[in-house]
């Protein structure tokens, strides 16, 4: 309701509805975002940035809150902070038109003219991971996806859509991890699944996971050693965003 009121231009009413809703549901991310957008429309950029930041801390991988936060920070002239947010977004998400707009504004700011292009030009972690895995002689294909099941780079199988592979595999990993922790195990590192079509390895990184298909008849021990070595050389594969770490803890 608050968002509908905002869109219709009834900003005071939108503000009242959003605030009332958040009193009852303070951890509702979409509510925080709506409140931020109402405040932004009212010209309260500082208040808007605070709400976007709260939304981001509630859901560290939420793209919308990060893009809105970056945009508000640019408008406030806080380029270093905006730069940091954009850097985080590019680490976990593919580029989007909204983000490109923020980047364009940031690049045109004097403070960031030199530094930001280097950040943007940086190869995203997921592509580096896919490249490292597919360079292994025993690996036929690899897909990197986020812990929440969003496919990021690579592909596993032409016959099955990557988002289906990523979503189902992430679900199975989360369920398995929960079972294992319930039984006193500390972590789930990886899973090998042998089927009629060959062997798949599913590796749990930090915020990332990878599904890897080995070449037919690849010796299993050797294949697994290769992928483990390749991933060990990429500490960012195991890195978790600090916010996500806190939330999981």
């Amino acid at each position, binding site marked *: 309701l608050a968002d509908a009121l905002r869109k219709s231009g009834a900003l005071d009413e939108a503000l009242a509805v959003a605030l009332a809703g958040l009193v009852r549901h303070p951890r509702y991310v979409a509510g925080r975002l709506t409140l931020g957008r109402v405040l932004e429309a009212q010209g309260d950029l500082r208040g808007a940035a605070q709400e976007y930041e709260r939304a981001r801390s509630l859901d560290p991988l939420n793209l919308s809150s990060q893009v809105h936060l970056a945009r508000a920070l640019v408008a406030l002239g806080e380029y270093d902070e905006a730069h940091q947010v954009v850097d985080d977004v590019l680490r976990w998400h593919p580029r989007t038109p909204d983000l490109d707009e923020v980047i364009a504004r940031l690049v045109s700011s004097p403070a960031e003219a030199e530094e930001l292009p280097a950040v943007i030009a940086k190869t995203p972690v997921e592509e580096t991971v896919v490249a490292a895995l597919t360079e292994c002689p025993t690996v036929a294909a690899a897909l990197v996806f986020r812990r929440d099941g969003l496919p990021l780079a690579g592909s596993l199988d032409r016959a099955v859509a990557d988002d289906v592979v990523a979503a189902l595999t992430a679900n199975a990993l989360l369920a398995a991890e929960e079972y294992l922790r319930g039984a006193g195990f500390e972590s789930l590192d990886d899973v090998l*699944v042998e089927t009629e079509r060959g062997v798949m390895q599913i590796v749990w990184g930090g915020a990332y996971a990878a599904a890897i298909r080995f070449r037919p008849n690849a010796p299993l021990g050797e294949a697994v050693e290769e992928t483990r070595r390749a991933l060990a050389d990429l500490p960012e594969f195991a890195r978790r965003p600090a916010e996500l770490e806190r939330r999981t803890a």
Partner: protein
Amino acid sequence: VTTLEETMHDLTRLQGVVGGLVISRDGLVLAQDTRRDLPVEAFAALAGAVGGEFVRTVTRLNQGAVSLVVLRSDDQLIAVAPVSCGYLVALAAGGVSLGALQWETKQAAARLDELPTTLIRSASSAAEQRKEP
């Protein structure tokens, strides 16, 4: 006639394997051979749940029938092979040869599938009776 226990023993002879179980799809222990103290019932429930999770997932991904799932956790390996009566499970130390574990578990699973149904039925009945209070 080879028994379930003998098939288990063939698997647990492999260096690094510390326990083997045959469990039904609902986690009942039909046969076991463990070399160290292992909370057998809890481990059976865990292996059945986790193995079943991946078997279902991979089946939904149209990857064909699953012959083996191996989980690595805390430097231990849990190998789960679907068999006609449920799952064959092996627990091994992290240093075990992965190729050998893969081969031996699949061989043991194939031998289990060749056992007479009467043998499996009697193991299931015994497990059900043990479950009774």
